[in-house]
């Protein structure tokens, strides 16, 4: 393969980044120390370009912040922040606790900047936490010329704590203990309001100067805890952009502190490699014309006993190059159905295209219809039917992907044909792996360990699998006192499980996947389902291949496991039946929503709403919230379960052929309310990859 030099890529990426914003503002929006579009600590009226995913690490004096931000739509963005205060107890030697805060912000851009109108954003900072940073703001930003941006705004909460001009909407009530963790609706835009302002001046493409008049008085850090001396409302500093992905900042803050910022700016939409890498495919093998060689089209070969096995073996050999396994092959004189398992290529459409071309090389000319059934967990996910003559005709046609999609059909997989020829070598099959695994408890704190996994495929759809985790190193202290939760401690003893069970059997399950009827998929998982619970979990999903809507039912019976990581159930005398009705919906443009209603692990009843943005290349970023009849007091800190999750395909960065992803789920607080079993192999996401909602956006890769 010919690879683009990194230098060219980064130059082009910079050009793209700058030209994308050129239509309205010449200067791309930068980030503040809170990871939001803005100045130094102040927010601005701008938003990042759609889908930007950023990580910001900043240190100012004794305060360290780490923030993940995502531009969820053109106008809506959100942040998840970890914050720690070093030397928190300097003035209070009697205090022994440390303080860590996790907070969530949300911002909406009301106006985009145009010739006479500034961009205008309204934002809520730390709006569901303990309220240590709670602020609301409206900020406007206008660009003047090609170098200068001016921001002005109004702030409430912490951003209204200095230089107030009054309280137009009444007093700001204190946050009640029981309301911590819920949206602080009663406080919004209440209390003192202060006008703030700042400027950003672009010295050149790399260097930027920023100055601001900030209205955060740092009452908590300065007056209460003596960590920071706020001598001045003026902050200023410089920032340096290194390529499209990195930005550094250094600031003078509060007239007394030096601040540092480091930002990683990722664009999930676009691959770092500039495009899909990997070797070229084999071309389509053309058949002779029927007129020139009518004998080639004779279907008599089907009567030869060894024809099937030979053809299956030849296909397996060709497809092995791309990591595609032939589960089985069913032949008639005119139709071939191949069932494949793709283990490396990250896009279903590309695996399908490669399979179709391999079939054109191997199968006799009389076979006109190619049916390709991608298999996930032993069950057919869908059936893609391609006519061989279309493949031959369209290979070099303009817009060949669109044309082929118009002529191909994607339907329910149907049952395995009675005449299917499997490979005796495929089942049973034993697989194992040993790999490092990280368990983060907070920013840069957690365990590094080794995970030994093994699975045994008894037959298609029947898998025995398990994993063991052994910690190697840790830089965090965990509390092993039993949870004081008012609910059964189905999750809040998590730290006990980690500390007391090392090594621990994480999972040991027998899972059975099936497709009992058209459009219906099922799963039954039995055994040690997850680290804290064991039992049986069953699921049925209805999902027609071309339907935006899917419906599911899940029913589980589980018993809480011992903390020691063994097989016992002596420590907790707790078992529960849980179950959910689920609806999934594809809103288009990659937005997928899910609603679950049912009974959760602690016996509480409620619902979970989640929304994910799924990119064509496999990136997923989403948020979820669960509200149940468990009270805020029962849930503990955080009031209800909520958080964000993301998953990044490694090949997006490396360009290798692999389906490995890196992901995490982040919650501000973990409580026992709204908890679900963490079972492997839930149906919707595994099946959906080969349905039209996922295949159509990536269909351009069918000829790749």
């Amino acid at each position: 393969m010919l690879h683009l030099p990194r230098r060219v890529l980064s130059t082009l990426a910079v050009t793209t980044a700058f030209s994308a914003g050129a239509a309205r503002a010449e200067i791309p929006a930068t980030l503040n120390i809170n990871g939001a579009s803005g100045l130094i600590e102040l927010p601005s009226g701008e938003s990042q370009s759609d889908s930007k995913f950023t990580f910001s690490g900043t240190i100012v004096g004794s305060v360290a912040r780490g923030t993940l931000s995502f531009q969820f739509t053109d106008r809506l963005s959100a942040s998840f922040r970890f914050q720690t205060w070093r030397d928190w107890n300097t003035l209070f030697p009697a205090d022994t606790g440390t303080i860590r805060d996790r907070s969530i912000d949300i911002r909406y851009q009301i106006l985009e900047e145009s010739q006479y109108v500034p961009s205008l954003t309204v934002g809520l900072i730390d709006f569901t936490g303990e309220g240590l940073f709670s602020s609301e703001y409206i900020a406007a930003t206008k660009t003047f010329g090609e170098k200068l941006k001016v921001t002005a705004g109004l702030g409430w909460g912490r951003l209204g704590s200095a230089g107030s001009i009054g309280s137009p909407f009444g007093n700001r009530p204190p946050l009640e203990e029981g309301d911590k963790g819920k949206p602080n609706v009663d406080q919004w835009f209440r209390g003192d309001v202060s006008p703030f302002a700042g400027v950003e001046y672009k010295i050149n493409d790399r260097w930027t100067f920023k100055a601001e008049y900030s209205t955060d008085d740092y009452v908590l850090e300065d007056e209460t805890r003596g960590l920071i001396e706020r001598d001045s409302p003026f902050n200023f500093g410089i920032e340096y952009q290194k390529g499209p992905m990195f930005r550094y900042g250094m600031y003078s803050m509060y007239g007394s502190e030096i601040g540092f910022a480091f930002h990683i700016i990722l664009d999930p939409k676009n691959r770092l490699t500039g495009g899909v890498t990997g070797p070229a495919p084999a071309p389509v093998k053309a058949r002779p014309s029927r007129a020139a060689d009518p004998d080639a089209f004779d279907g008599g070969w089907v009567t030869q006993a060894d024809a099937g096995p030979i053809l299956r073996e030849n296909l397996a050999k060709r497809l092995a190059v791309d990591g595609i396994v032939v589960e089985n092959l069913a032949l008639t004189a005119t139709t071939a159905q191949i069932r494949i398992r793709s283990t490396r290529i990250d896009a279903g459409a590309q695996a399908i295209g490669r399979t179709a071309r391999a079939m054109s090389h191997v199968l006799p000319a009389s076979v006109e219809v190619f049916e390709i059934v991608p298999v996930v967990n032993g069950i057919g996910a869908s059936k893609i039917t391609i006519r061989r003559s279309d493949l031959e005709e369209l290979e070099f046609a303009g817009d060949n992907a669109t044309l082929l999609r118009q002529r191909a059909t994607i339907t329910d997989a149907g049952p395995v044909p009675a005449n299917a020829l499997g490979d005796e070598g495929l089942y049973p099959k034993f697989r194992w792996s040993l790999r490092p695994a990280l368990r983060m408890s907070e920013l840069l704190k957690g365990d590094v360990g080794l995970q030994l996994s093994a699975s045994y495929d008894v037959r298609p759809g029947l898998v025995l699998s398990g994993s063991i985790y052994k910690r190697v190193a840790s830089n965090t202290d965990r509390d092993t006192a039993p949870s004081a939760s008012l609910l059964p401690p189905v999750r809040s003893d998590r730290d006990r499980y980690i500390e007391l069970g090392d090594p621990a059997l994480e999972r040991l399950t027998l899972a059975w996947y099936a497709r009992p009827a058209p459009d219906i998929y099922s799963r039954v998982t039995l055994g040690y389902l997850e680290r804290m619970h064991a039992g049986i979990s069953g699921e049925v999903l209805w999902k027609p291949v071309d339907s935006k809507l899917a419906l599911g039912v899940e029913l589980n019976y589980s018993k809480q496991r011992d903390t020691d990581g063994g097989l016992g159930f002596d420590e907790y005398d707790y078992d529960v039946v849980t179950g959910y009705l689920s609806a999934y919906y594809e809103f288009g443009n990659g937005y997928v929503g899910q609603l679950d209603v049912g009974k959760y692990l602690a016996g509480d009843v409620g619902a979970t709403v989640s929304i994910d943005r799924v990119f064509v290349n496999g990136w997923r970023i989403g948020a979820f919230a669960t509200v149940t009849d468990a009270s805020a007091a029962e849930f503990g800190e955080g009031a209800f379960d909520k958080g964000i999750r993301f998953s990044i395909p490694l090949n997006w960065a490396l360009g290798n052929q692999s389906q490995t992803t890196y992901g995490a789920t982040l919650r501000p607080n973990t409580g026992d309310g709204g908890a679900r079993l963490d079972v492997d192999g839930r149906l919707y996401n595994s099946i959906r990859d080969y349905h039209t909602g996922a295949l159509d956006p990536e269909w351009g890769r069918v000829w790749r």
Partner: protein
Amino acid sequence: MGTGVAVRLKIGLVALAVLAGCGNEKSEQRPLIATVGAMAASTVAQMRARQSGATPAAKAPPARAEIEKAGVPVLRATIPNLGADRFLTIFDQKGDVVTWKTTDGSTFSLRNGILIQTRGLGPDLMSSNVPTVGQLLQNGGTHQRQYFFLGADDQTTRRTYECTVTVVGKEEIEIFEKKHQVTRATEECTRQQSGKLTNEFWIEGQTVRQSRQWASALTGYIEFQRVVD
């Protein structure tokens, strides 16, 4: 990229290699490790090149006799943006489309010498609607060109250009010691949104002997020479 960055990159690559872990599913693990290995190797090579302050010396082009030794048709492709200069051999031939392949797995499909597809370059030209050689020999002729790319966003992007042909005239060119009498034609293409590109063709009879053709924003222009028929 400074040495510091290179070192950090290498540490990152090693970390990724470790993340890959090990197991008995060799076919699934190898590509990652191979990729990481290849990237590390090329990083080290780049660092060395930079430290020595020299770009790798361009190899002297081989003599025609050497190229002809294999006894197969050969196309030379040069991509200035990628710093690539390769000799390609025929991978597949169907009707008037010939697909040429590099030894490392990239392919270029040309219809009567006019580029219609690339594979393996990263951002690839997946398909296109192009003029015929006859159209390129018609001075003042106009036609539409359409490109369909698979870009960094994994999706098909269409670009439509309006093109005008100028037949510059007869010329003599030399390709690896062999002289060819050709007609030189340029194809100037513009699109509404902005953007302009110029393809150049040196046509011998009805065959494109040499050309400089645009492939994609990232790949830029590719220069082709039909060295051995």
